[in-house]
């Protein structure tokens, strides 16, 4: 290829490039002379500004750009004439050339590039490239919004977590407070029971003891009326003592944590019999243990108390001219042990069989104090606290068969 050919081709390419820039470029291209008079105005500008090249060519930029001076556009062009290019970001010059967007009620976002056109050493004019960045801005705005949403979401999640933490803390505080109150009221109850057991029982011990001393030491010299009166004092003191003991046992059973462990029925029975030595000797009671008594899961002291109450009833509620005979046996039932306490006592009417375990809890009149109520209520309460149960099968005049059931050890 010779030089002429190369030159022709270059010239053609230049021409094509100019044509492309004029007709097809997706940007606005504006050229001025050094006077800032419009010398080129491409198709993009014609289409978007609705001003034909013929309308604007030769006119000064200030006639075409609204507020040319105010918006300091003049400054940029003067800089360009000095050879200094400027980029006008859409961020600061949202609408370089105010072009309303059809049907969207807003203007085209643009960025602009203003530079000088130089021939040799000499500035002969300016060139301005205007780009439509509406979509990019929209995309950015969307991203921005998303980022904000995420931030907001994070913030609200943080707020939620904060509120949750706060609520948790409040809850914990309330639980702490409630526990404290309960502990306090428990301690108060314990103190109350303690005081009752000490201060209320001392005078009763003395009333009973001294009534008995009167009877022992002076009974022979007193007439029957006096002796009977002493007997009433002694009996009242005894039932009062029994009542206080039962109340204490009941309140204790209701609030104390019972630690469960394997317990030998034989051992517990022995301890219960120890507690009733006097009563049993006086009544000439006989207790018979049948076969090997199983081991159960229970709280030892509570179980001793339960046996003591059941045995005491068996000894107490017998026909006067009969000696109490009590038979203890145990049997296995589905992983539980049932212990039978059978007596030859006065028995319980069928309709009272369930009621006798409940009397204490709904006792109102003083008449309810007497009898088996308290002891059996304690039995049931104690078994309930240990995951057990109890019952009775009875025949009036023949005897009662009480049973208690607890998990096998």
């Amino acid at each position, binding site marked *: 290829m010779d030089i002429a050919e190369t030159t022709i081709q270059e010239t053609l390419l230049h021409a094509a490039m100019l044509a492309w820039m004029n007709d097809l470029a997706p940007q606005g291209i504006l050229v001025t002379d050094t006077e800032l008079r419009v010398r080129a105005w491409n198709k993009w500008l014609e289409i978007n500004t609705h001003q034909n090249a013929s309308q604007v060519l030769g006119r000064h930029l200030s006639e075409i750009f609204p507020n040319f001076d105010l918006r300091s556009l003049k400054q940029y062009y003067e800089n360009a004439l000095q050879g200094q290019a400027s980029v006008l970001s859409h961020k600061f010059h949202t609408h370089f050339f105010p072009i309303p967007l059809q049907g969207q009620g807003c203007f085209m976002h643009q960025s602009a590039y203003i530079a000088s056109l130089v021939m040799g050493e000499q500035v002969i004019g300016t060139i301005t490239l205007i780009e439509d960045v509406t979509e990019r801005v929209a995309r950015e705005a969307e991203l921005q919004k998303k980022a904000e949403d995420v931030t907001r979401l994070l913030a609200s999640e943080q707020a939620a977590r904060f509120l949750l933490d706060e609520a948790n803390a409040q809850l914990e505080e309330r639980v702490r407070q409630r526990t404290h109150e309960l502990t306090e009221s428990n301690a108060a109850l*314990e103190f109350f029971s*303690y005081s009752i*057991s*000490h201060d209320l*029982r*001392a*005078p*009763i*011990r*003395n009333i*009973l*003891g*001294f009534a*008995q*001393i009167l009877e*022992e030491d002076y009974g022979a010299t007193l007439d029957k009326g006096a002796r009977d009166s002493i007997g009433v004092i002694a009996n009242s*003191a*005894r039932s009062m*003592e029994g009542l206080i003991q039962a109340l*204490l046992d009941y309140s204790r059973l209701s609030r*104390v944590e019972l630690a469960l462990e394997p317990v030998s029925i034989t051992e517990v029975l022995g301890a219960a019999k120890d507690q009733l*030595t*006097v009563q049993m000797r*006086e009544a000439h009671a006989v207790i018979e243990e049948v076969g090997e008594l199983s081991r159960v899961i229970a709280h030892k*002291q509570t179980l001793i108390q339960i046996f003591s109450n059941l045995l005491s009833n068996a000894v107490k509620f017998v026909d006067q001219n009969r000696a109490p005979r009590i038979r203890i046996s145990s049997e296995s039932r589905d992983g539980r042990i049932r212990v039978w306490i059978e007596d030859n006592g006065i028995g319980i009417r069928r309709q009272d069989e369930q009621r006798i375990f409940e009397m204490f809890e709904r006792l109102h009149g003083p008449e309810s104090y007497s009898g088996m109520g308290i002891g059996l209520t304690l039995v049931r309460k104690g078994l309930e606290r240990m995951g057990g149960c109890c019952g009775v099968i009875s025949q009036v005049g023949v005897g009662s068969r009480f049973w208690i059931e607890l998990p096998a050890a």
Partner: protein
Amino acid sequence: MSIASENVSEERQSSGNEICTLLIAEDNLGDFVLLTRTLAKMNVHCTIVRAQNGREALEYLERCGDPPLNDRPTHFILDLKMPILGGFEVLEWVRENSNYKNLPVIVLSSSAIESDVLKAEKLGVDAYLVKPAGLEELAELVRKILAIWKLPHKSQAN
């Protein structure tokens, strides 16, 4: 026997050449009389010294501590709830005192609250017994005490 009056804090019951001196710290006069009467009825022979509260008990123990006096207690029955100074304070003092750290002590209290029993056992007692109501029950209590302590006594006729 006689009943100690409220302003006489120590009462001695002497029945000859007994070798044991039982200190009873008990604020309730009735309880004290009932117990000592039962001891006497069951022919327990010992000098009985009564302290009406914990402080009297400590004062007495201190007085016959070092050098030991004849009526230095050989056994000590201690109530827990007493005015001025309670039973536990006395028991603590006794266990820390070189003269008495091995003194046999039985706690005799109105109730057997578990925490009290544990505390007493921890400090070291021969038994924790609950004051019963009724003379028969008291006799039973004394039998228990006699089973634990070999106090000089004559068995009852029956």
